Every structure is written in C-alpha cells, then in structure tokens.
C-alpha cells in the first residue's frame, strides 16, 4: 500500500482538446462526481429502490499565478470562451503525469475564475469547472 501526498499531483489541460499539457503552478485540485438516481419503487414495496442515472462532475483547480508559467494563461482564460462548446479537455492526476495513469480525465467547461491579490501574499487563482460527457477514471 502506498499513500499519496497532494504535491505528487498535477493538472493537464488543453483548451482545444487536442493535446493536454501540464498546467505549471497548480496548488490543488478537487473533483466531485455525482450520479443522479431514479426512484423505481412501485406499489406494494416497503423499501425504496433506485437505479443510477446521469453522471456529472464539477471541481476546482487552484494555482499560484505566474503569467509566464506554461499552460496557465490558456487555462485561466478559458472562462472567457463565448458559446463554449465544451471542447476543453482536463486530466487530473493524483500522482505523476502519465496520461491514463492515476488520473481522471474528461471534457469540460471552466465556469468560474477568481484571481486575488493581497498585500504580503502571493497572487493566487481559483478556477471552477464542470464536466461535459464521459468521465474516465484511471484511479486503480
């Protein structure tokens, strides 16, 4: 058994969805995946029963802002894409950066970008996203 620490992680992204590349300077990421459920209980049942339905995800990526860091600008500014076709691709790694290994990948939309500047502290950026389409898990 091997535990994993957050600093082993990374984020890859491509706004056009063609070739993911590491976003340098990410500090954390999170992804919440939700499966809706449909109630299949019928007359006569005494316990509710369900089947799984649509799956979706949302999450955040936090970065230490650096205008020269590879991949940051494209990631941060994806929120400005109008009529976003959800063609951006994400891959969130728990460790390493080998595509398809220890990661979760999906297409999605950056829905929120918050950049903050405070005296005496680093400028940090927090982005939120939602998934669109299939979420592929490679966490095993």
């Amino acid at each position, binding site marked *: 058994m091997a535990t994993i620490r*957050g*600093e082993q*992680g990374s984020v890859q992204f491509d706004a056009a969805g063609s070739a993911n590349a590491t976003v*340098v*300077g*990410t*500090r*954390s990421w999170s992804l919440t995946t939700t499966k809706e459920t449909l109630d299949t209980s019928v007359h006569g049942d005494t316990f509710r029963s369900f089947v799984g339905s649509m799956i979706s995800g949302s999450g955040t990526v936090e970065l*230490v802002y650096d205008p020269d860091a590879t991949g940051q600008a494209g990631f941060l500014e994806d929120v400005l894409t109008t009529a976003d076709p959800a063609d951006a691709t994400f891959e969130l790694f728990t460790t390493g950066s080998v595509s398809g290994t220890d990661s979760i990948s999906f297409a999605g939309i950056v829905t929120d970008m918050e950049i903050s500047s405070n005296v005496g502290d*680093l400028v940090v950026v927090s982005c939120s996203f939602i998934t669109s389409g299939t979420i592929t898990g490679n966490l095993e």
Partner: protein
Amino acid sequence: MAITSRNQVRSIIESRLALELAESPAIPVVFHNMDYEPAVNSSWVQCLVSFGQNEYLSQGLTVDSRNRIVGLLLLNIFTPQGEGPGANYVIAKRVRDLYNRVIVSEVYFDAANGPSVLAPPVPEGYFQTQVRVTFEFIEEL
C-alpha cells in the same frame, strides 16, 4: 530568471550591498564566514544571509514544480563609539533602502525592520545597530 540555488539568492543580496557600499563614502562590508579585523573607531557593515522555512508551493514533485522559501537578511552596522547614533543611522538608511519592499531578480524583500540598537555590541568598542529584512523567493524545479 528562475531561481534554482541558494547561492544565486545570496549573490543577488550580497552584490547589491557590496555595490552600494563601494560608492562614496565607501564603507567596508563583511559577509558570512569571512575574516575581518575592523580598524579602531571605523565604520563597517556585517551582512548575514540565512535561509529558513521551505514550503510546497505547487504540485508536480521534482518536475515543473515550485517551493516557497523564506530567509532573513541581518545587517549589523558598526560606527565609532561615543559619537551618537547619527552616523550609524545614515549608513542604516543606505542599506535599508536597498531592500525595503524591493523586488530584485525575483527575490521579494519585505518591509525592513530597524535599525535597532544592540547593546552590548558584538564586537565591543562600537555603536551597533541592526537592520533585519525577511525575504522570500520561489525555487523552480
């Protein structure tokens, strides 16, 4: 310019001070681990750079990753004893202005502290004040 070593930071800090104190009126400056025998009743500055806490700043282990490192710059300012603090504070202002809230080659200096009078001075025989400046930089791996 990405910072990859402590010596790079030390050099940035020390060279800035050495250049300033080489200007008129020139004042001797001594750094860590250097022998120096000050002349009696002379003015001189001791510059001590220390590195401290290091923290993870980004993900990525040893590739495309960053650490945030803080350090402390101690500037001991010595002037002749028995002549009041004025001359000492003039030197203190010169060195303080070099670092106070300044960003040099990606080294971020905080607001400078001091000059604070140190008594008894080390070595004795001088009037000593100390300017302290914390700084930080991002180590890129």
